[in-house]
């Protein structure tokens, strides 16, 4: 099987993962980094993508395009674009109603549309894919934020196609993350609610996904473009600036270049602090020719950013209210995005969801790309079928949950269990095996239907088996057919006795 790729194109960085020979892995770029900054810089003679562009940002800010993901596929009049235009060091102009970056390239003024910029980033990704040593066809799944509209998705896929990728599908980032952890993929009966917490360079997304019968359904999504890793860097940089002022009685803020330098150093410190207890910060000739040297401990850093950490939990609460769930309903938490590497943040999340399973075994800034690669692997080979039409995302599901109660109950409590949760895709089949106790000769299972609360349940029907052998074992198969009717078949193992009912759909 040919290799299948997954590309995660974030606002600050991009990551490429490959599925090959049953394994998914991230492909490192030519510099050996597994994540490439999604930054494009234009210079007098060349254009640079990735680390080279990021390093030049101090000198060449007005010709270095960052954060292109925010403008991609949007209209120029979009308030979000207007906001970016106001704050961006690169000049953004209107071109055919769409925003375009005006930069100086090869000593000429040139405009590039966001699609073109994204294409350059994807091209860089494709070069990495090619260096991986595979044929020309690069079947790829690309990811996008949940709140991307079809137009933006289209723009994203366009730029990937233009860069030479064969885009199989555009999927949402949180679902890709859930797929990376194989949720519901191995065991179709797995049912859980997953919270995907993504904290990237410039934005924070919280998504609640319900996994049922191997299918993912997004219950709620909150996007906060105001919270991001850069705020952490800023706090740290401010801390250093204060220290510098105390030490040398001189304000770094007078010098823009110095601020940028300090930010770079602070960012490095932040990265180091995610793994080490202390980090050194040294900037040569920071301001007025003074070399700056300092160190910061993780504890210090955590105390600096404690208010930010608090802020980072806000979207979590928001998304839970939107999904009408409590934190106890969340079974799993997935973290992704580079900023979630901060140990304090993971700790606070873990504390918040103390009952949920915390999934962080995959490096957070690679998880989305890995998920995409997995999806690409699933889709590779059946070209025609991989193309989805809009309405095909819709799946027939049960509108209410189905519960069963087995009588007589062995235990004291009323043993009411959920057979199919609400919104279970059909057709579905479930099988339960009941061991009968001694001297038990009758077996009865009642089937209920209920809305959210199981208290106002409605009895749909029951299956009763009389004169079953003692110590018998009853296998009950519940099968919801395509047309929506529920067929219940109970078979006794030793006698082969069979009893079935058909509950029709309305």
């Amino acid at each position, binding site marked *: 099987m040919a290799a299948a790729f997954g590309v995660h194109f974030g606002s600050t960085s991009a990551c490429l993962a490959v599925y090959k020979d049953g394994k998914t892995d991230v492909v490192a770029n030519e510099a050996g980094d597994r994540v490439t900054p999604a930054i494009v810089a234009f210079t007098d003679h060349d254009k640079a993508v990735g680390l080279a562009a990021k390093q030049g940002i101090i000198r060449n800010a007005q010709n270095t395009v960052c954060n292109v993901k925010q403008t991609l596929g949007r209209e120029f009049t979009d308030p979000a674009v207007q906001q970016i235009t106001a704050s961006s060091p690169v000049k953004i102009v209107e071109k055919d109603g769409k925003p375009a970056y005006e930069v100086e390239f090869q000593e000429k003024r040139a405009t590039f549309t966001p699609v073109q910029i994204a294409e350059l980033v994807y091209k860089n990704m494709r070069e990495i894919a090619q260096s991986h040593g595979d044929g020309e066809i690069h079947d790829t799944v690309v990811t996008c934020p949940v709140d991307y509209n079809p137009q933006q998705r289209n723009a994203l896929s366009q730029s990937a196609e233009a860069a030479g990728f064969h885009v199989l599908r555009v999927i949402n980032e949180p679902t890709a993350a859930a797929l990376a952890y194989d949720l519901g993929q191995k065991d179709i009966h797995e049912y859980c609610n997953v919270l995907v917490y993504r904290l990237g360079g410039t934005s924070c997304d919280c998504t609640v996904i319900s996994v049922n019968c191997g299918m993912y359904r997004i219950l709620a999504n909150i996007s906060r473009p105001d919270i991001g890793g850069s705020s952490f860097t800023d706090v740290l940089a401010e801390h250093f600036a204060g220290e510098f002022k105390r030490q040398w009685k001189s304000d770094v803020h007078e010098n823009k270049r110095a601020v940028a330098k300090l930010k770079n150093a602070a960012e490095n410190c932040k990265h180091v602090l995610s793994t080490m207890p202390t980090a050194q910060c040294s900037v040569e000739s920071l301001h007025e020719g003074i070399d700056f040297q300092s160190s910061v401990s993780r504890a210090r850093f955590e105390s600096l950013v404690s208010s930010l950490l608090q802020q980072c939990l806000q979207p979590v609460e928001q998304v839970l209210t939107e999904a009408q769930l409590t934190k106890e309903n969340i079974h799993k938490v997935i973290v992704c995005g580079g900023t979630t590497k901060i140990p304090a943040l993971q700790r606070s999340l873990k504390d918040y969801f103390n009952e949920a399973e915390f999934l962080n075994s995959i490096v957070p800034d690679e998880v989305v790309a890995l998920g995409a690669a997995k999806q690409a692997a699933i889709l590779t080979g059946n070209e025609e079928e991989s193309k989805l039409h809009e309405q095909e995302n819709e799946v027939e599901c049960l509108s209410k949950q189905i519960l069963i109660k087995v009588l007589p109950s062995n235990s004291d409590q009323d043993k009411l269990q959920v057979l199919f949760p609400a919104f279970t895709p059909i057709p579905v089949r479930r*099988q339960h095996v009941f061991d009968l106790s001694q001297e038990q000769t009758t077996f009865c299972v009642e089937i209920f239907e209920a809305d959210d609360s199981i208290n106002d349940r409605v009895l749909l029907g029951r299956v009763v088996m009389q004169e079953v052998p003692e110590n018998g074992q009853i296998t009950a198969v519940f099968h919801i057919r395509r047309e929506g009717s529920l067929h219940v078949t109970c078979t006794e193992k030793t006698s082969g006795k069979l009893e079935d009912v058909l509950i029709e759909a309305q």
Partner: protein
Amino acid sequence: MDSPPAEEDRSMVVAKISPLQMVSIEPVGRWFEAYCLRRRNKQSLSHTTMTSSSSEENISDASTDEEDELMLKGLDPKEWKQQDHYAVLGLKNERYKATEEQIKRAYKKKVLKHHPDKRKARGENVKEGDDDYFTCITRAYEILGNRVKRRSYDSVDPQFDDDVPEVSSDNKDKEEFFEVFRPVFEANARWSNKKKPVPQLGDIDSSFDEVNDFYAFWYDFDSWREYSYLDEEEKEKGQDREERKWIERQNKAARAKRKKEEVTRIRLLVDNAYACDPRIQRFKDEEKEKKLAQKRAKQEAARQKAEEEKRKKEEELEAERKQKEKEEEEAKAQAAAAKKEKEAMKKILKKERKTLRTIIKEFDYFAADEAERVKNMADVEKLADMLSLTSLQSLNEALTSGDKERASQAFTAEVKELDDKREAEKQKLLEATKKQNSGGGSAGARAKQWSDEETQILIKAVNLFPAGTKQRWEVIANYINQHVEGSNRTPKEVLGQAKALQKNVMDESQKQLVNEKAFEILQKEKEQKKNAKVGDKPSERVESVGEQQVAQTGSNPAPWTTEEQKLLEQALKTFPASVKDRWDRIAETIATRSKKDCMKRYKELAEMVKAKKAAQAAADAKAAKKT
């Protein structure tokens, strides 16, 4: 803890399940893909790997198992070729749609049940070796489990209906057509070699393209059907190479024949369908209708265009005609007005003249004696002819305003003025002619007059020594001096003369004329020389070419020069039309022209002026029209 009540001792259904709901699902994961695949293929759950528990699969199949067994037991292993292998494996209903997986499973199931060892263990009696019906099962799997063999078996599937619907009026019916042909096409579609979905017959509302695609597909239908299964003899049975070859040949021929039949069959099917298809008829009709409509529209458009053009032309013509009429009328009116005015002016002039004459007469021509009277009378006539209207009027006024003395004064003054004016004009003209004549003469005043001979030689010399010759004029002067006896010309003189010649006389024709005359002159000179020898009498006057011409022929054919023209004009003015022998006098003033020449010239000029005026009028009229 509620125990089941008595009335609930049996299974029952109380309510119906709530209706389904469409929910948007993230398009990721293998289960989603599996779902989509199922939905696309419209398969039920049991056909996919979804069946986690396969033991419950064939609950409904239990009843048919017994029938199967009876059937199996009745099979004769020797007759395997006629047997329905799908039925043997219990896939009677799946047939060619059965997946390889299904076949494999079905076979394994049958083996578990019908293997001789198993049956022996169950105590059933088993026939020895190949005679047992179990060989049928293995044979069936042998064929269906092998892709190639299965295909050849599928090709001749006894269950397949090879019939082709007939072309009949019944089948042409709208409803009937689809009912009859759709299942046939659907059934035959399975032979298609192409992976893609075979185009469906569609319905009565199918678009032209759809129908077209459908027939295009079926007309070059690529079938995978083959007939190796029906081979009479097996190749492997041949004793030796020759025999095997022979068998193969036979089989090949039989297969080809069958294949051909199949192709014809499909062809016939499509032909019949095409003939019966109500849509084809409809499309044909529509096409016809469309063409007709197009034609009609075209015709209509052409007709309209022609009409439009005709109308436009007529309008234009009408407008032109009107314009012309208007112009004509205007011109007429103008002409009439001009005529009237002219007449009026003439009348006034006449009247004024008359008054002048009568006044003068009244004053008795201010004359004392007869001679003065005659002179005054002539003066009066002259005044009346020459004076313009306004001056005439003023004169009349002056004449009538006072007594005889004052009138006489005025009259004489006027006569004098007129005479002065004419004299002045004459003088001016004379001066001008003098000046003209002295163009060469001015030099001649200082030096000697240029003789004709000298001029001839000069012209010759000028041509001989073209511009650019070193010290050209000196050379020319020397040349003239050498060739003309008694001539002593300085280069300056030569230059002046050459220039004068160039300026005045020497337009191209005259030059030619001079050259032509050169010989004549030479002759004359010779004669003269002869005469001179006899009489030795030099000629006194050398006549100009024109004068000679006039003298000799009575007319000068050369074109009129500007001087001549001026002279003529002046003469015309000096001698008004009333003067007797006017033309003789005019001719006298112009030496180089005869009377006849002058008259001719006058006529030409008059005509020219007339033409000029007409052209001017036309241009004016045009300009007026434009504005």
